């Protein structure tokens, strides 16, 4: 549990100088003690050979227990380690990194090293001065464990049932009049258990029955979510059933809107429409379900059948990899029904990945022939012209009774039944769509054509510029119709998948408390979608729990702090509402920002955005960092010791600097490093404060931005770069070199590179010369 939230009436700081791990050998601890008790006016200053030892911990704990201190300043190792030891309930903990970033990255005994150590202590004391323990935000109204599941297909049904089994009440809404979605139409399903070789029975009816029979689940068919406001714990949703509106407060939302088939008539040249015997895989599934294995044209029995998997991304951008498995399934089922059938599968790269290889081999063993090649055309007489690259010629193949075209799964990240939203559709593809540029590059050449075909795109300038217009112009209206400043849609990635960081954190949503799962997030099979639903339900529970406890969800799990807005000096500039990556800040009618605290992820981007410095956290605020910047003893130019201020993202750059220390990479003595929650939280005012304070250079170290952004707050690094570009312009207007402020992207693995980067920068700053403001 986080620290208790009682008001601290009087700050009683204690400084604990650790001498272990060679600290006392490398720096002058006597001098530090003198600094603490002298200039820093902290008489309670102790030393120990190893504060992390049982003895050392006991010493601090006793001081806390006795009420001697309520702010513990430990000058020892990095704040990233020994967190279990240095944990004293009832006291605030401030850490000064003397080991990794001082003695391990600087030569022992030197004046510069001692100056750095002294500054580390000054910074810690300054931090303590502006540090208050966070308090929970005013209790939001919490809806209890009531979950809204949107979509009544297999994913939504599973989500509803799993949530009910975990103790929630559930409302399941489905836009059509029937539950089961596309899964209902599959005659059989892909294998999901060992030996992964045979199509398995479709048990969707059992699932529907279980949901309908569960008292904790309310099923609403013919229902749309026409409005969503509020936030986790208390989303305020409007459910419209047959035209009638119903308001409901729900704790979290699982979006399982699934997919729709790609339009087979867009598969150019493959004969769809030219003959009734050219059918899509969806239509062939109907044939399998009917059990009548006959040609559509004349009712003759099916004997020789070709399946075509189009791997060509121009023909079909949604060739999801699932299509291949569906073809295998259908071919096996056909063979079972017609054992003498001759079945060909024309494919390019055959994507039967993972255990699906067993399924593929099963089909091969059964005698289904997989022929690698690009299908050039399918004639009205079902002659297939295969560019057989293996043989090296175009092979006309005839004698087929039917040709089945594999289609892809298009994610339902919008509701295609609805008109596009009047406002905010431009935000459907977020400005950080990581793959937009890639897709644009891949599509270069036919982009114009595509744009013409695409249904009436919302051609906002932004969407055009970002080059992913083909994808941006997805048809349809919003699924949840979010009443958010950031627009009504869920942000999507390439090809319209509603997702975020899908590698490490598959449910790191960009709309807190709303979790997508199933094929809306990624093309997936029924089994995979069921699993995905379970994951999303768990995250939904966590979001409700966090709202209840007024703490943050991932990645700052359990954080009680939240941004507080001093509206008295707010200029209604709206930067905070626009830049919030999570859509947590809305605008009131009068234009003032209003925080939805349960949506907030505590990154501080709003704080960094605010030009009048009126957005602050109790334990992380403008004044705190300002004081920390000012606390450093900046020597005058005659000392020939420049000072460089580094703002380091605490998740990547700061650990990289620690690891540079672990590897004993030697760092320039001129830098002073301040960790920040996210580069997005860096206020331009800190830069001016630093320049006024005589720093000669300022470097911002953030994560990779752009297409493959790595920021867990989505766009902190990108925002910082933008802000610093305008700072650079200001510098130039003040006749200062714009090199004095620099933003760099470093990854957590850059421990060697970040050292070189800073050392080079120090050389560069020395070459430029000292800050003319120094000493003023």
């Amino acid at each position, binding site marked *: 549990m986080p620290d208790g939230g009682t008001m601290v009436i009087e700050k009683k700081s204690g400084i604990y100088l650790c001498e272990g791990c060679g600290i006392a050998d490398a720096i002058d601890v006597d001098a530090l003690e003198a600094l603490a008790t002298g200039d820093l006016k902290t008489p309670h200053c102790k030393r120990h050979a190893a504060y992390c030892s049982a003895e050392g911990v006991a010493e601090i704990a006793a001081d806390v227990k006795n009420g001697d201190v309520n702010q513990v300043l430990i000058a020892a190792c990095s704040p990233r380690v020994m967190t279990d030891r240095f944990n004293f309930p009832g006291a605030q903990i401030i850490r000064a990194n003397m080991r990794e970033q001082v003695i391990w990255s600087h030569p022992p005994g030197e004046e510069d090293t001692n100056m750095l150590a002294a500054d580390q202590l000054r910074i810690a004391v300054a931090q303590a001065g502006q540090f208050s323990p966070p308090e929970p935000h005013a209790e939001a109204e919490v809806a209890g464990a009531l979950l809204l599941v949107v979509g009544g297909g297999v994913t939504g049904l599973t989500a509803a049932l799993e949530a009910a089994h975990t103790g929630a009440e559930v409302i399941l809404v489905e836009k059509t009049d029937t539950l089961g979605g596309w899964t209902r139409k599959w005659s059989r399903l892909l294998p999901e258990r060992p030996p992964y070789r045979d199509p398995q029975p479709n048990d969707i009816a059992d699932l529907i029955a279980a949901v309908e029979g569960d008292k904790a689940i309310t099923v609403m068919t013919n229902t749309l979510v026409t409005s969503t406001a509020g936030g986790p714990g208390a989303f305020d949703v409007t459910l419209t059933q047959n035209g009638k509106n119903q308001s409901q407060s729900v704790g979290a939302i699982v979006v399982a809107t699934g997919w729709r088939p790609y339009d087979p008539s867009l598969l150019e040249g493959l004969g769809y429409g030219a003959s009734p015997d050219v059918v899509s895989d969806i239509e062939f599934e109907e044939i399998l379900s009917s059990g009548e294995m006959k040609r559509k044209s004349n009712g003759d029995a099916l004997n*020789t059948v070709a399946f075509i998997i189009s791997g060509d991304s121009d023909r079909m951008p949604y060739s999801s990899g699932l299509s291949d498995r569906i073809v295998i399934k259908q071919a096996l089922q056909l063979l079972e029904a017609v054992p003498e059938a*001759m079945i*060909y599968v024309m494919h390019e790269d*055959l994507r039967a990945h993972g255990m699906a290889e067993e399924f593929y*081999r099963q089909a*091969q*063993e*059964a*005698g*289904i*022939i*997989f*022929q*690698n090649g690009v299908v050039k055309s399918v004639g009205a007489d079902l002659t297939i012209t*295969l560019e*057989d690259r*293996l*043989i090296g010629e175009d*092979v*006309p*193949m*005839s*004698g087929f009774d039917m040709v089945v075209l594999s289609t892809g799964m298009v994610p339902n990240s919008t509701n295609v039944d609805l008109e596009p939203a009047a406002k905010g559709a431009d935000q459907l593809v977020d400005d950080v769509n990581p793959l937009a540029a890639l897709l644009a590059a891949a599509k270069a050449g036919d982009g114009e054509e595509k744009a013409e075909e695409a249904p009436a795109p919302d051609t906002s300038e932004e969407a055009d510029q970002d080059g992913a217009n083909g994808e941006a112009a997805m048809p349809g209206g919003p699924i949840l119709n979010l009443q958010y400043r950031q627009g009504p849609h869920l942000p999507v990635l390439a090809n319209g998948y509603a997702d975020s960081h899908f590698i490490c954190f598959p449910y790191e949503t960009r709309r807190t408390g709303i979790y997508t799962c199933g094929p809306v997030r990624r093309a997936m099979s029924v089994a995979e979608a069921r699993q995905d639903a379970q994951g999303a339900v768990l995250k939904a529970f966590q979001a409700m729990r966090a709202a209840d406890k007024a703490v943050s969800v991932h990645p700052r799990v359990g954080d009680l702090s939240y941004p507080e807005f001093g509206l008295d000096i707010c200029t209604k500039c709206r930067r905070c509402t626009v830049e919030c990556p999570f859509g947590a800040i809305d605008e009131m009618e009068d234009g003032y920002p209003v925080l939805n605290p349960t949506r907030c992820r505590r990154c501080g981007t709003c704080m960094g955005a605010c030009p009048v410095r009126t957005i602050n956290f109790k334990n992380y605020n403008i004044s705190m960092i300002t004081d920390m910047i000012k606390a450093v003893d900046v020597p005058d130019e005659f000392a020939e010791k420049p000072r460089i201020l580094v703002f380091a993202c605490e998740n990547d750059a700061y650990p990289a600097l620690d690891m540079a220390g672990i590897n004993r990479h030697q760092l320039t003595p001129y830098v002073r490093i301040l960790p920040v929650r996210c580069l997005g939280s860096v206020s331009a005012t800190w830069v001016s404060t630093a320049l006024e304070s005589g720093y000669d250079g300022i470097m911002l170290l953030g994560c990779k931005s752009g297409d493959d952004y790595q920021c867990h707050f989505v766009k902190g690094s990108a925002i910082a770069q933008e802000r610093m570009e305008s700072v650079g312009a200001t510098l130039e207007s003040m006749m200062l070199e714009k090199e004095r402020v620099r933003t760099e992207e470093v990854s957590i693995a850059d421990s060697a590179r970040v050292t070189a980067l800073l050392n080079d920068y120090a050389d560069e700053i020395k070459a430029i010369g000292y800050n003319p403001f120094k000493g003023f």
Partner: protein
Amino acid sequence: MTAALPETAENRYDLGFARWVRDNVEGGDKLSLCMQCGACSGSCPIGTQMDHGPRKIIAMIRAGMKDEVLSSNTLWNCTSCYRCTVRCPRGIPVTSIIQDLAAKAVEFGYADKKENALFAKSFWWSTSAFGRTDERLVTARYYFSLGFLEGIRRGLANLKIALGMVRTGRMHLGMPHKIKDIKGLTAILARAAEIEAEEANDEL
């Protein structure tokens, strides 16, 4: 004897041939397992001398290219080293398929003049006549089956080898070794050929 080859359709790519191979060639039922990875052709010691190589032969069978397959020199370059077979990631008996296709090519008149067919015939002559292979006689018969002049040429070219063999007692001179019960063997082979022919007729 094997079930008759399917009629050649106007279309070169007659799927009937793929089906015929599946049903009539040893290992043909495993053809559908091929994923065209090329490990077989890439492993073949004399793949460079083949017009197609085993991997492409399989692709051509599956595309129904009867004449091209049965007249391919690939069938005649197999050294029976079985590398393709042991390396095949799908466990396809590639060597057996190639060799049986060679037998079929002979059977259906695609290979009357091929060296290997002639060699095989010389070999079988010795085996069926004596019950054993007489290396000298098989070789000689084979050389001369290539034509009288070619026979002389080959014989002379290998004269030194032959002399070496004679010198070390490794070339048998005189009457060929013969098994005792040659009569029995002849009867067995005749009956076996008869059964095979009957079976082919049954399937017609």
